[in-house]
């Protein structure tokens, strides 16, 4: 009893002290709030903001998070009256689209020269800079697969085998950035005709399409579906959480996209936005991305990530972002026409 009440008193004292400190800090300098749009995994957002605030406590970050497709569409829909100040962690293909609509403010962050040339916009100063690469992967639940007698697939085309009927989930490319990078990579690797042929066959085995790119892997981790087409980061995290998951890198190669950052035009806080952009490609930030992503903007800093397959960098295809961005709408419409039509339940 005494210990609890002691703890309570101590806690009260501490919180009083803390609020006093906050008041002093507020008095010292008014805090600026930046509205930051992102598609970064929700569980990492607190960490990102906290690490940034270690260096810049006076800039508060208000996150707006959703799937890549949604955030992109939201930015486009708001283009007459943009609500975001900065974009931190959105697919490069999306940023190319936004750049064409005149939604981005060019800026060369400090330390730009250290970035791998692939990880920046070609214009000078660049309209966006890259942070890390997120790559496709297959989450394979070994326990459920064994129960259902499913062999481990080695390639994308293996997944079209009728044995996997109703055993695969994948993200809908209309809403999910992971879904779009999958589809765009298949079209680039196999060519348009063979690419669609592949998806037609794959569609026969798909149990359902999800709204978000992480759900197929989370579902596979829960055993709700044996195979989830998702991305490597999610797969590694699920494996770390104790799910009986094998991460498969298909041998044809894997699609990938870059998580990138940019300043949105007409921000009311250009100075703070630039401070954030400088930090986004700083060494500290890169090390932070490296905690979850194996491939990062400053290549020489990259360290291997736990549970990440080792061959991942070699498997990444030579992705043509310009092509993907330009054909995005057409690919998505074609995809909807083919696969959203067959909406009858399986079984």
């Amino acid at each position, binding site marked *: 009893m005494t210990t609890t009440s002691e703890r309570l008193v101590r806690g009260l004292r501490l919180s009083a002290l803390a609020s006093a400190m906050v008041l002093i800090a507020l008095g010292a300098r008014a805090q600026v709030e930046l509205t930051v749009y992102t598609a970064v995994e929700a569980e990492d957002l607190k960490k990102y903001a906290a690490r940034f605030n270690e260096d810049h406590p006076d800039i508060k970050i208000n*996150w707006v998070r959703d799937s890549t497709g949604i955030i992109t569409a939201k930015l486009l829909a708001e283009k007459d009256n943009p609500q975001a100040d900065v974009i931190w962690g959105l697919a490069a293909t999306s940023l190319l689209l936004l750049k064409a609509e005149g939604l981005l403010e060019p800026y060369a962050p400090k330390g730009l020269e250290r970035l791998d040339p692939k990880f920046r916009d070609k214009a000078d100063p660049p309209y966006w800079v890259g942070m890390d690469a997120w790559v496709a992967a297959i989450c394979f639940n070994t326990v459920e697969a064994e129960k259902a007698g499913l062999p481990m697939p080695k390639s994308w085309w293996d997944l079209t085998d009728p044995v996997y009927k109703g055993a695969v989930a994948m993200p809908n490319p209309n809403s999910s950035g992971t879904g779009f990078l999958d589809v765009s990579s298949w079209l680039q690797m196999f060519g348009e005709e063979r690419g669609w042929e592949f998806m037609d066959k794959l569609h026969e085995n798909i*149990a359902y399409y999800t*709204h978000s790119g992480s*759900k197929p892997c989370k579902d596979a981790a*829960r055993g*709700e579906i044996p195979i989830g087409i998702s991305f490597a980061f999610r797969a590694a995290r699920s494996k770390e959480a104790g799910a009986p998951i094998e991460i498969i890198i298909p041998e044809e190669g894997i699609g990938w996209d870059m998580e990138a950052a940019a300043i949105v035009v007409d921000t009311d806080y250009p100075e703070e936005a630039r401070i954030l952009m400088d930090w986004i490609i700083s060494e500290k930030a890169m090390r932070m991305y490296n905690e979850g992503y194996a491939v990062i903007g400053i290549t020489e800093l990259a360290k291997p990530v736990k549970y990440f397959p080792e061959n991942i960098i070699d498997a990444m295809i030579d992705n043509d972002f310009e092509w993907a961005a330009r054909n995005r709408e057409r690919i998505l419409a074609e995809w909807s026409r083919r696969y959203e*039509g067959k*909406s009858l*339940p399986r*079984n």
Partner: protein
Amino acid sequence: MAVQVAVPPARAGLALKADVWLTRGFIVAIILYLVVALALPLATLLQKSFEVYEFRPEKVALAFYRDGAWQDAGRLSEWVERRGYVLNDGLRASERSRERFVDIIPKRERRGVERFRVTDLSAGGGLLLLEGRLSEPGETFELSRREFSRLRLRPEARFGFDNYRYYFATPALRSSITNSLFIATLTTLIVIPIAFGYAYALTRSCMPMKGFFKLVALVPILVPSLLPGIGLVYLFGKQGVLTPLLFGYDIYGPIGIVMASAFFTFPHAFLIILTALSIADARLYEAALSLRASPARIFWTVTLPGARYGLISAAFVVFTLVITDFGVPKVVGGTYNVLALDIYKQVIGQQNFQIGAVVSVVLLFPAAVAFAVDRMASRRQVALLTARAVPLQPEPKRRFDLLMLGFCGLVAVYILGILIMCQLAALFTFWPYNLTFSLKNYDFDRMDGGGWASYWNSVEMASWTALIGTAIVFSGAYIVEKIRGLFAARQGFQLLAMMPMAVPGMVLGLSYIFFFNNPANPLSFLYGTMAILVISTIVHFYTVSHLTAVTALKQMDAEFEAVSESLKQPLWRMFTRVTVPVCLPAILDIAIYLFVNAMTTVSAVVFLYSTRTTLASVAVLNMDDAGDIAPAAAMGMMIFYTNVAARLIQTLLARAVLARTQAWRRR
């Protein structure tokens, strides 16, 4: 409640005049509220559904500067024709479609051209886009080669039936109509007999534990419709506890939708049928018995016909609830598309607002028809009750009572089973591979959906809705019921007050986007605030609250107003000193109804929340969307406990209030 203050006669006249102005002002304000918060947004939605986008290359003129002179290069449409170029890959143009000029005019045709002049000949302008800059009507862009390569063509907006034509020509979209009708009909056919049996057991048998069963039946009202979906996944999903009971069928699809819809519509059907059965007239049964009718014959000729309007009303309420709900198909629908889900997918998934508006208009039809039928049926139900009716007292029949107990037990197990499964799932660390208990799934701040802040936002939103909503609804009902004169205004208001019932939440939410998220609207500052969530939720649940208030007010004699007037008392004094205290139990009912629904609703607010106003119910949806189904169940259960707590507070309050203000009812 004796009036203690005598008002001098000279001031009383003034006060009465003030009354007239006060009531007029108030009725105008409430009508204005419903017009702005309901009628205008719906009109905007209708308009949006006719908005069409189209590329108009014939409205773009070109000129090339070559060999030191400007040459006319014709219209862009001629280039499109000459090359057989397919604009927008033959797809329907959307608000966001773009075409690059250099794709239409090939390189070799541009050889030697130093500068380009491109003129926008459209009346509205905006056909040309260069690095974020739009052309004015009639404006000419003079461009270098480099700039020309970045020039894009935008589609022009006009009004037409094209969206509807597209909708009905697309099998994927069209099939949702039959799907929606199918699951709504099937659920109705399943829920109505069960709800009837349950209500029958509570009114016509002498089984034990009636109070408990009545409580259990009302439980589903306290949770968002997403929760039974999640519970079913845990019970019947691939890793479900009871999956073998499905005999290899998949829970994702119509089976799951119907099972979960039955769960959340059950209490609504049950309450209506319960009312219909409780007003039975014992004299009819006595007559039937003396005519030696068999129990079966009595059931078919007395019981069922007596409750028929209640049954019809319940059937249409269930049908409407299912067809307008999107939470259930979102979670367990799999690849089975329904109308309400289509609106969500078109708007949130693809930002295709025009088609979303079309689906909304399509969804309005069945909902409006069901609403009209329900209104007609419930009007007749009231007429059945006569002053001379004698309440029916059931007599104990051992076998029948046991049978009824068993039946109600089964229903209760289904309802509680889903709920308990959700709570367990929320507490397991990692279903099904790690079954130790932990609070990991309550760490909402690490998930999508806005974290714990969402929960508190929901509580705040529900409290405001209950507080402000009750005030508006009750005052409005008072004016309709108790004020003489202003006949036209009162009729118009009555009509407006009934409209929300026929408007599905998704449709309301979408129409709010169109209406409030428009910089030209002076009310656009409301967009993205807590206020718009409260406004939309009050409107969404206006009708039922309004009817509750009207019923309570009808029980009060109109003489009160007459007496108050002859005593020359101002209206507000009568209202605050007599009407409100007498109707307090009903007012508390309205408040709790608004609170509970504000906590659980997803449909309207899913289009209206912002980063600062994320809600718990929407968080359930978003966490499930991202695959974090256990945390979604955890949040859903938080909503449940909050509603239970609110209900308890309401019950205690009502009791205290009754003791204090309703003492006059007892002598």
